């Protein structure tokens, strides 16, 4: 019956309204769930371009080189990032250097723009170096061990996800123009690094 199906609508709406009237605590700051540090670490990575962009460049570059290179970066980068972070969490706090950030932008953006044909070993070493450097700087700023370790795990998880998505996206690109577009993005990253180097030099 037509009337039967439509007559249920107010009941559903009433039920939905009743549920909406009794909301659970929002837990926006996640103190009570214990998930706060995970999200802190995760969002720290996604909101820090000095960490995010070099990782993106490395992921795109290894993706361009092929699946085996992407897989290597996928596991080496997060694991060394975690190691560097754990080492950094025992050291005193340091701020990331703008010069160092600009060098990573220049190097990784340049390698991506040039689609540099480096060996798997060199790429592995480079990924490990990126992970250790950035992880160490992140670790020094995350406070005392404990919550910092959980935050670091969230951060490493974000690195893993970004490398997985970006490298996998590029690996499957076959059209020449699409691969060139990825390399153009590398040139933009390198150019941003050059400008950042200028800002760092200006600040002295």
């Amino acid at each position, binding site marked *: 019956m037509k009337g039967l199906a439509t007559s249920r609508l107010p009941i559903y709406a009433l039920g939905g309204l009743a*549920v909406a009237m009794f909301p659970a605590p929002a837990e926006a700051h996640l103190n009570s769930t214990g998930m706060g540090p995970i999200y802190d670490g995760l969002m720290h990575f996604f909101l820090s371009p000095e960490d995010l962009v070099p990782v993106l460049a490395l992921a795109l570059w290894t993706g361009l080189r092929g699946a085996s290179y992407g897989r290597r970066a996928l596991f080496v980068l997060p694991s060394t990032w975690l190691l560097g972070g754990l080492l950094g969490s025992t050291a005193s706090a340091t701020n990331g250097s703008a010069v160092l950030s600009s060098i990573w932008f220049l190097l990784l953006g340049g390698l991506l723009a040039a689609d540099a044909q480096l060996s798997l070993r060199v790429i592995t070493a480079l990924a490990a170096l990126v992970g250790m450097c950035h992880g160490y700087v992140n670790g020094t700023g995350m406070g005392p061990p404990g919550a910092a370790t959980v935050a670091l795990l969230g951060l490493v998880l974000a690195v893993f996800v970004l490398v997985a998505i970006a490298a996998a996206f590029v690996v499957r690109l076959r059209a020449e123009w699409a691969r060139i577009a990825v390399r153009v993005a590398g040139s933009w990253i390198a150019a941003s690094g050059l400008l950042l180097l200028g800002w760092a030099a200006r600040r002295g």
Partner: protein
Amino acid sequence: MKGPATGVGSAGPLPVPAPVASGKRIGPLLPANSDRLLLPGIATLVFLLLSVQTAFAHVQNGEAAGFLSGFRHPISGLDHVLAMVAVGLWGAQLGAPAIWLLPVTFPMVMAVGGMLALMGVGLPGIEYGIAASAILLGAAVMFEVRPPLVVAATLVGGFAIFHGHAHGTELPPGQSPLLYSMGFVMATGCLHAAGIGIGTVHRWAWGKKLLRLAGAVVTGGGVFFLWKALA
């Protein structure tokens, strides 16, 4: 009471017959199964309302503004816009590999110009150089000049230094240099991409004429800015 047969089973809502006006059948405004979509829609809405997200209202100092300032910078001056679009137009006219090599060369060398400015290295005649870039790049498009790739890249790169130097030092106080730089470079790249997009009309005969006309407009703009710089 028994409704008309629908073929979808007795449990589902029945389709509303479309009204007939002036002998012409008018379709319903909503699809026949809109009732079925309504309930999942309401449920999704309620679920979203209940799923409270963290606000992230406090971005780091100057970050959002830094990117937008940088992004707006190259597109805020018509002289820069003309030259950068002309690079894309010329690349599209020349075809591969110039179509991607020129737009890669320009931001890279422009960043060198910006870096030189930030380091305090002076460059004379910046305004003339920018105006000349619009004149010559526009003329290259207008006359469909086809020099060797190295010459084209050198010409584009040489002018990019002037553009980068002019923009490089203008970071508003309190904003992130990195995000400003990224926005600045991305906007430049987007202007090149716009030029390349327009330049795709080159495959048609009328498109070739249109591109040459666009080159003439760029050259005219360059002459105007040179006149302004000299005045």
